[in-house]
C-alpha cells in the first residue's frame, strides 16, 4: 500500500533514516541537480541506509533518481509523472573497504570518486588501470551504472569488465551481493544485470574491482600518417598482432592539432599508443609496433611530442570538450567507408574526428567540436547521415521487463542523457 504524506512528512521519514543533516530541501542543494529538480536530496552513509531509503520511497510513492559525481552529461527524468522526486546522492559512500594485494582487487563503496580511489591505490603501488583522465571526476558507481564508451584500454578491456562483484539495493529495500570469483560457471553473471543499468534496477552500493600494479615501464609513442585510413590500418594491424597497448588512439588532423600541439611538422593523421609493462616486454613490443606502423606508412614523431601528449592526457585537470562528442561503433571492414562519408559531410565544418576503443573487431568513431554551442544532437545527426548508428543507451525490452519485476512500482528512474 502506498502511504500518502506531505513533502515535509516524506522528508521527515527519510531524515529518520539518514539523519537530519544528511537531507536537504534547500534550493541551493536541490538546484545542483539541474534537470532532476527534486524536492529533496538525501545523502545516505551506508548500504543499509540506501536500502532503507529506497524502501521508504517505494512505500511512500516517491520517485528516486540516483546521483554519483554528476559528471554524466545533462541528465533528465524520462517521465513527467506527477510524483514527488528525491535524489539519492552517493557522495558519503566513499570508503575503501579492502585492498587485497595478493589477488589485486579492491572493494569500495561506489560513491567514491575515481580520482580518490586511484590516489589511494597509487600509494600502494596499484592502479585501476590505464583509463583516460576524463573519468577521474566520475564516481565508481557512475562508471559502473553508466559506463562511458571511453572507459576502455586494449590491454585491460572495458573498465566495467574489471568489476568482479558488487552489492546492490533494490527498490523494495532488499539487497543482494554477488560473490567474488575469478571466473565461475554457476549460472548467469548476475552482476551484469546492473552494469549499464543507469540507476534503473537498483543502487550499486559496493563493488569489487580488479586492480593492477603500477607498470614498470610506460612508453608513449606517436606516429604521423598522411591520412586517417592509413593510421587506422596500422592500428588495426597492431590489435591483431598481439601487441596490446595500454592506450591506443587514432586522430584526424584537427584532433591531432588539439591533442599534440605543435608536433614540429604538419600532422594529417596520427596514431598514438602507450605501451606498458615489464621493460623487456615493452622493448620488444616497441620494435614490433615500429615495424607495423612503419609498414602502414607511418613516421614516428619525436619522443617529446608523445610524452607531452601522454602527460597532458592524464593530468586530472583535463576538461571535457565544451560540446560532448558524438560517437558510433564501427567494424574495421566498414571504417574506410564510414570515414569517407563523415569527411564528405563535414567538409565545410572544422570538426574533430578520432577513433578509440580500438580492438580486434573495430573502433569507436567520434565527432567532436571545440566550439561551444555545437549541439550533441547535430553531431549525432551527422553520424546518422553517414549511415552510422550513434550511441544511444536504451533498455532492451527484456531488461525493461526485468526492471518491472525488480521495481514494480517504478520507484527508481532510469536516467537519460
Amino acid at each position: 500500500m502506498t502511504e500518502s504524506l506531505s513533502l515535509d512528512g516524506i522528508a521527515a521519514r527519510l531524515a529518520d533514516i539518514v539523519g537530519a543533516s544528511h537531507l536537504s530541501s534547500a534550493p541551493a542543494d536541490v538546484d545542483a541537480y539541474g534537470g532532476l529538480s527534486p524536492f529533496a536530496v538525501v545523502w545516505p552513509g551506508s548500504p543499509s541506509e540506501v536500502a532503507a531509503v529506497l524502501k521508504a520511497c517505494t512505500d511512500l510513492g516517491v520517485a528516486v533518481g540516483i546521483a554519483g559525481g554528476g559528471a554524466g552529461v545533462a541528465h533528465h527524468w524520462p517521465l513527467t509523472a506527477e510524483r514527488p522526486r528525491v535524489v539519492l546522492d552517493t557522495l558519503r559512500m566513499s570508503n575503501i573497504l579492502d585492498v587485497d594485494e595478493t589477488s589485486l582487487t579492491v572493494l569500495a563503496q561506489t560513491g567514491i570518486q575515481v580520482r580518490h580511489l586511484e590516489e589511494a591505490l597509487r600509494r600502494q603501488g596499484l592502479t585501476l588501470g590505464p583509463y583516460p583522465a576524463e573519468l577521474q571526476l566520475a564516481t565508481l558507481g557512475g562508471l559502473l551504472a553508466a559506463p562511458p564508451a571511453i572507459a576502455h584500454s586494449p590491454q585491460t578491456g572495458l573498465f566495467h569488465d574489471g568489476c568482479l562483484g558488487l552489492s546492490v539495493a533494490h527498490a523494495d529495500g532488499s539487497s543482494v551481493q554477488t560473490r567474488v570469483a575469478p571466473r565461475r560457471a554457476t549460472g548467469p553473471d548476475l552482476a551484469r544485470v546492473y552494469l549499464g543499468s543507469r540507476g534503473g534496477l537498483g543502487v550499486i552500493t559496493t563493488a569489487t574491482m580488479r586492480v593492477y600494479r603500477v607498470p614498470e615501464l610506460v612508453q608513449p609513442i606517436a606516429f604521423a600518417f598522411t591520412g586517417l585510413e592509413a593510421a587506422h590500418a596500422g592500428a588495426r594491424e597492431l590489435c591483431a598482432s598481439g601487441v596490446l597497448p595500454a592506450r591506443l588512439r587514432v586522430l584526424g588532423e584537427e584532433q591531432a592539432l588539439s591533442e599534440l600541439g605543435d608536433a614540429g611538422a604538419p600532422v594529417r593523421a596520427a596514431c598514438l599508443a602507450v605501451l606498458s609493462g615489464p621493460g623487456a616486454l615493452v622493448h620488444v613490443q616497441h620494435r614490433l609496433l615500429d615495424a607495423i606502423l612503419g609498414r602502414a606508412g607511418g613516421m614516428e614523431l619525436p619522443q617529446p611530442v608523445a610524452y607531452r601528449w601522454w602527460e597532458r592526457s592524464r593530468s586530472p585537470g583535463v576538461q571535457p570538450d565544451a560540446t560532448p562528442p558524438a560517437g558510433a561503433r564501427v567494424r574495421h571492414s566498414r571504417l574506410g567507408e564510414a570515414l569517407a562519408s563523415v569527411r564528405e559531410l563535414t567538409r565545410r565544418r572544422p570538426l574533430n574526428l578520432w577513433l578509440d576503443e580500438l580492438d580486434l573487431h573495430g573502433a569507436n568513431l567520434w565527432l567532436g567540436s571545440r566550439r561551444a554551442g555545437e549541439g550533441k544532437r547535430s553531431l549525432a545527426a551527422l553520424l546518422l547521415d553517414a549511415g552510422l548508428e550513434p550511441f544511444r543507451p536504451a533498455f532492451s525490452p527484456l531488461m525493461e521487463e526485468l526492471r518491472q519485476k525488480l521495481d514494480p512500482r517504478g520507484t527508481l528512474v532510469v536516467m537519460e542523457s
Partner: protein
Amino acid sequence: MPQTQRYRPSPALGSELLAILPAERISQGSADRLIYSRDMWPKTLLSVRDNKPSVCPPDVVVWPESAEEIAAIVKLCRRDHVPLVPWGGGSGVCGGAMATSGGIVLDLKRMNRLLLASSDDGLATFQAGVIGQTLEDQLNRRGLTLGHFPASIYCSTLGGWLAARSAGQLSSKYGKIEDMVLALEAVLGDGRIVRCSSAEQPDLVPLIVGSEGTLAIITEATLRVHRLAAHRVFRAYEVPRVSAGCEGFRRALQRGLRPAVMRLYDETDSLLARASGQGRAAGGQRRLLAALGEELEARHGERIGDLKRLLLGAALSRAGMLSRLAERMLPRLSGGCLAIVGFEGEPSLCQAEVELFHAELLGVGARDLGEGPGLSWYQHRYAVSYKQSPLYAAGGFADTMEVAATWERLLPLYKSVREAISSLAMVLAHFSHAYPEGCSIYFTFAAAAEGRAKSDLLYDEIWRRGLQAVIKEGGTISHHHGVGASKAAYMAEEHGPALAVYRQLKAVMDPDGILNPGKMGL
C-alpha cells in the same frame, strides 16, 4: 538421481510435433530415448554398471534446424507445460542435459553452419549446434582460431560451451568461452526469438551465457576469433611445493604475462604423472588398480606404471589411512610439483615472455625441465577416455570437482577440500586456468564402496563435504563444468540472496518454467 515431478506426455504430442518437423526429425523410439537418457555425469555410470541405464529417458527427441522451428516447438510445449531440454553434445558432466522431468530433448546438432567469418573484423558467427572441432577446423581453413580447446572438443558443441561456461586449455591467453562471445541469437521460453549483443547496456549476453538451458535456447553466436598463432613454445618446471608454483604463476600473471597454457600439478598428481616401477596387487584390488590405471592414463595421456596402480588401489579401499600416510610421505617421495607453461603468438613476443616467466619461476625455487613434458602434454591433450570407465566396472568410481577462488583464498581452499574428502577418497589436483586475480583448482577424486547403495551414498558425501569446504573458504563451486542437476542443491549457498535475481530472470524469459526444469537450483 534428482527426479522432479515427471511430466505425463499427452498422446497427441507426437502428432502435434509433426506439424512442425518432418517425421525423421522426431523420435519416440526406445533406442533414441535410451541414448538421450543421460549425459556424461559420472554418477550415472553407477546405474549403467547395475544394468539400469534409463535414468531419465525423455519422452521425445527432436532435431530442429532453425530458430523458427525451435520457437514453434517452444510454443507447443508452453501450451501443455511440456519440459524442454536443450542438448548439444551431451558431454556435460553435471546431468545438465538430462530430462529429469521427462518431456522433449531438443538436440541442436543439425544446426551446425558457419554463417559468417571475417578475419578483418576478428569475428565469426556459427549456429549453436556445431561440434567444437568442426568449428575450429572451419576457422583454421581461413587462417583463424577461436582459441577454445576443451578436452571434450570432439564431442561438445558451441551451444553447450556457452550454456555451461566452458573453459579450454589455452584459457589464460584466450579466456573462457564467455570472454569470446560478442552476440547471441536465442529462443526464450515464451517462444520469442531474441538477438542480443555486448554493445547493449545492460548486456544480456552474460545473462544467457551460463544459464544451462534454463532461460533460453541458444541458436547462434558471434565469437571473437584470432589469427592462427605463428609460433608456440613450451617450458616445464619442477617446483618444490604447490604454494611455490601458485606464487610463481600469480607473480607472472600480475606482471602482465599471458601464457596460453599454465598447468601446475600438486604433489600427488605429479607423482602419478611421473612414477613408474613394479608393484603387485592381488585379486579384486588388482582389477581395480588396473582399471584406475587406465582411467589415469586416459586423463594424463601417458602410460603409468604399476607402482602408481598399487598406491592408488590401496588408497581407494583405505582412503583415510593412505591419505594421512601420503601427506607425510609425499614431500619426500614426489620430488615436487610439475608445472607446464606454453606461450603462443608472435615469435619475439613469445620469447620475451618465456624469459620473464622463467625468471619468475626460478625466483620461487623451480628447476627447469626443458620443453619435453610440455610437448608431451600438448600431444596428448585430447587423450580422454570415451568408453565406459573400466574403473566403474571394477567397483570404484571417479569424478572431478573444478572450483575457483581469488589467489588470497586459493591455498586455504585447496587445503580444506583435501582435508574434507581425503578420508573418503583418493584426491589429486591440478591448477590449470589462472588469471591475474585468481585460479581454478581441478580436483580428481576416486573411491570405492561395495554395492550401489553405498556407492551412491559415498559419492554424494564426497561432493557434499568438498563443496561445503569450497563455500566456507569463499570459492565458487564450479569454474567451468556448470551446475546442472549435480550441484543444484548448492546454488543457494553459492549465490545467497542474489539467486532471487536469477529467478526473476527466469520469470521474464521462461514464464511457464518449461526450459530445463529442475536444474540450477531454481
